[in-house]
């Protein structure tokens, strides 16, 4: 957050719910927020993707993901949102460098940019849901089949969870990331807390 006012810290969309989030190590299901991640959305047409996709992937050090998949194990990571549509996510505070690097990768350093790279850091917050019961909790309100035969680590999908649009990213055997619009985060966290009551 570059525009931090003197003496006031940024406040995440679900900071007021932080004390309620079950985050006990070894719990059947844990929920935590990773607030203020840097996020840049990339849009490339087919031609641009062939020419500049690899450059963007190289800058991000994790390559570009295949359809329905994510790339990158730590920070940054990239999520496939649709054909030629990607979301690159990095540590809080790194949006400026992320954006500048991606714009250069798309040709801005050569005078003209192909595709678009836009800072959308304020659009979504990241929730991490993990534990042996995480998939059961998601099944209460997610329409996707998350069974290991159809979904697994490294997969991601834009879908609906409890009437809220989310990007669902499975990061481990029982670990999920939910990227939700900040205006829906309060609703989604309250819904998750309710769905989790029988497991925690």
């Amino acid at each position, binding site marked *: 957050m570059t525009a931090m006012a003197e003496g006031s810290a940024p406040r995440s969309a679900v900071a007021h719910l932080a004390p309620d989030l079950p985050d006990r190590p070894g719990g059947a299901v844990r929920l935590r927020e990773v607030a203020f991640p840097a996020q840049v959305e990339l849009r490339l047409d087919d031609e641009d993707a062939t020419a500049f996709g690899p450059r963007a992937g190289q800058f991000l050090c994790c390559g570009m993901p295949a*359809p*329905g998949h994510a790339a990158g194990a730590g920070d940054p990571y990239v999520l496939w*949102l*649709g*054909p030629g*549509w990607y979301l690159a996510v990095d540590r809080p505070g790194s949006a400026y460098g992320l954006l500048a690097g991606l714009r250069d990768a798309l040709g801005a350093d050569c005078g003209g940019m192909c595709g678009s790279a836009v800072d959308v850091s304020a659009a979504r917050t990241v929730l991490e849901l993990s534990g042996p019961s995480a998939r059961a909790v998601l099944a209460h309100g997610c*329409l*996707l089949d998350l069974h290991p035969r159809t979904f697994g680590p490294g997969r991601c*999908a*834009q*879908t*609906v969870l409890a009437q809220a*649009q989310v990007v669902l990213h499975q990061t481990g055997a029982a670990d999920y990331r939910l990227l939700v619009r900040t205006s829906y985060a309060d609703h989604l966290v309250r819904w998750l807390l309710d769905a989790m009551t029988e497991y925690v």
Partner: protein
Amino acid sequence: MLLIPCPWCGDRDEVEFHYGGQAHVAYPSDPDALDDAAWADYVFMRDNPKGWFRERWTHTAGCRRWFNVVRHTVTYEIAGSYRPGDVPPKVAS
């Protein structure tokens, strides 16, 4: 609930989509030549078959792309989906 095959995302629940009506309704090739009745026909009038129907859907909550679906209006069976410009799946009459 329909399970609709998005050409890019695979099978998804109906609530992720929005309906776009009949597919392959071509914009008039000579718009200046149309009178009001012809415009009304182009803008409002659509086929309403009892049987297979080619229709447009958009994956609103997913990849946000438009595509076409061949759906049976009586049985709700979906014969398949195809991207704009692609060949529709074959169905019996």
